[in-house]
């Protein structure tokens, strides 16, 4: 069973290798983003040595880690699913002996692992040479971070799957997909760490799944939290991971029943 899905990860890995140019341009874009946000935050700090209890070094680390994590958890599952529904390729997927959604997620994982190995890891190393960031050296911190990052990947994929499946109901959901991307980048704490949001906004975000996508893993690695708080973070991520399965299952079941294959 797992063997089958791992094969899909491998195939996606091969396909990513086939389109290398896209990958090189990605490196430039991510480096630019890290640079821009680093200088932006340093300008905000000015002469201050702390912002809401966060030092400039912690902030720089947060920016670097958050963007490099994004390279791993980010995928285009929403666009892929929507496209397959729109052009009818989903029919081909349904004559194969596997679970469509699960397959999509594993393809996303293949893409994520590709970028993690060839992009995030070397990228983080390079950034640590250029900018004054401070990564923890303990195995334990890295272990928690990896776990949290895996959860982040799953939650983000789930959000993408939900957005993509909406194409069954709204044939053209390109706008929805674009809006979702901006919203996730903002609400997940990628652009601004959640503890720097105004208090009322922070309270609302605490009840949304997005914090588990970027804020939680990046905070674990950049600020050195006490273990009890880390476990609380992971608990929240796990809760969302399970809760999000419900709308996916509902959408998928309704969609299968309402499916009209486009184009003959």
């Amino acid at each position, binding site marked *: 069973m797992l063997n089958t899905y791992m094969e899909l990860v491998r195939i996606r890995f091969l396909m990513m290798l086939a389109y290398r140019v896209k990958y090189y341009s990605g490196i430039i874009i991510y480096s630019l983003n890290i640079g821009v946000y680093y200088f932006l935050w340093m300008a905000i700090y000015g002469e201050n040595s702390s912002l809401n209890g966060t030092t400039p070094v912690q902030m720089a680390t947060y920016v670097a880690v958050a963007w490099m994590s994004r390279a791993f958890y980010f995928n285009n599952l929403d666009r892929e699913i929507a496209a397959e529904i729109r052009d009818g390729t989903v029919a081909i997927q349904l*004559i*194969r002996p596997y679970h469509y959604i699960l397959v999509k997620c594993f393809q996303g994982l293949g893409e994520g692992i590709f970028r993690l190995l060839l992009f995030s890891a070397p990228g983080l190393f390079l950034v640590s040479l250029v900018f004054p960031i401070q990564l923890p050296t303990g195995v334990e911190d890295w272990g928690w971070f990896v776990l949290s990052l895996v959860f982040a990947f799953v939650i983000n994929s789930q959000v993408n799957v939900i957005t993509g499946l909406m194409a069954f109901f709204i044939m053209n959901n390109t706008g929805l997909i674009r809006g979702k991307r901006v919203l996730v980048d903002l609400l997940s704490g990628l652009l601004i760490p959640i503890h720097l949001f105004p208090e009322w906004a922070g309270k609302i975000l605490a009840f949304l799944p997005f914090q588990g996508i970027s804020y939680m893993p990046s905070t674990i690695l950049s600020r050195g939290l006490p273990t009890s708080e880390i476990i609380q973070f992971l608990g929240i991520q796990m809760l969302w991971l399970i809760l999000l399965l419900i709308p996916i299952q509902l959408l998928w079941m309704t969609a299968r029943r309402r499916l009209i294959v486009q184009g003959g």
Partner: protein
Amino acid sequence: MRSIEAKGLTKDFKVYQSRSGLKGAFRDLLNRKYRMIRAVDHINLSIEQGEIVGYIGENGAGKSTTIKMLTGILEPTSGTLQVNGYDPHREREQFVRTIGVVFGQRSQLWWDIAVRESFRLLKKLYRIPDDSYRQHLDRLVEVLEIGSFLDQPVRKLSLGQRMRCELAAALLHRPRLLFLDEPTIGLDVLVKENIRHFLKQVNKEYGTTILLTTHDLSDIEALCSRVVMLDQGKIIYDGDLERLRSQWGDGRRLILELKDEISLSALNERSHGLALRWEGEGTRFVAHMENGTGVSDVLSRLVPAVTVREMKIEEATTEDIVRRIYREGITHHA
């Protein structure tokens, strides 16, 4: 066990209609009008293991919708359906292991990776054991002659090459039932011939049931012992090809070029008592002969009186017959 057993199989689609104009567009936002379309209407179909069945009908007759229900892609609106002993939609994941599908218009191979990699992935998906995989693949590669481009990505193959790979992909896991939706669309004569030959072989060797939809009736003639014809979602003919021909075929036409001019009435007089109808004037005549009338009977009546310079016998092709049925509907004949 029967391959396919469908009773009262029906599929309705909801089709949304948009109102015209700007005002209509705003009204559509709040309250959309739709109407139901019955694409497949109470179909009864029973296909035995090992049959090759041609499924024909005009565009929009409901062929593809039926295939999509039979393969578990679409859920029937009503009716019962058993394919290979499974309910295709409800038990999809187990069911699809027992079937192979080729959609002529869509590729089921992975576009960006080599054909061989696609096959490997399918092997994993269908959990085919190593030795049986290698053996079977070798055989498919040999018969379909696809060995020379196994290492190329699918997007670089020609249509004929791709289609042969698709067939191999659909048969890798030795399905008991093979669905082919327009498998020869856009292919040249030689490739078509190869594919037909191959399908016959598969059917004979493994006893694979084949259900084939096509617009190319020569496919049907070459392969199928049985034809199911669909019109507006209903089955209008189900039986062998021979009966279709004898029942709806117009019989043969005898075309004559005579040496001397002769009048129509004189010809009619000559062939009096034979079941035929003359047409033409001067030296060119066509005899529309009903079934049962022999060419020799007609000639033996004519030869003593007129000299025949040229003669040609024409038989209605399946295509003619089917075209006529599409145009006139079966009710005229039944």
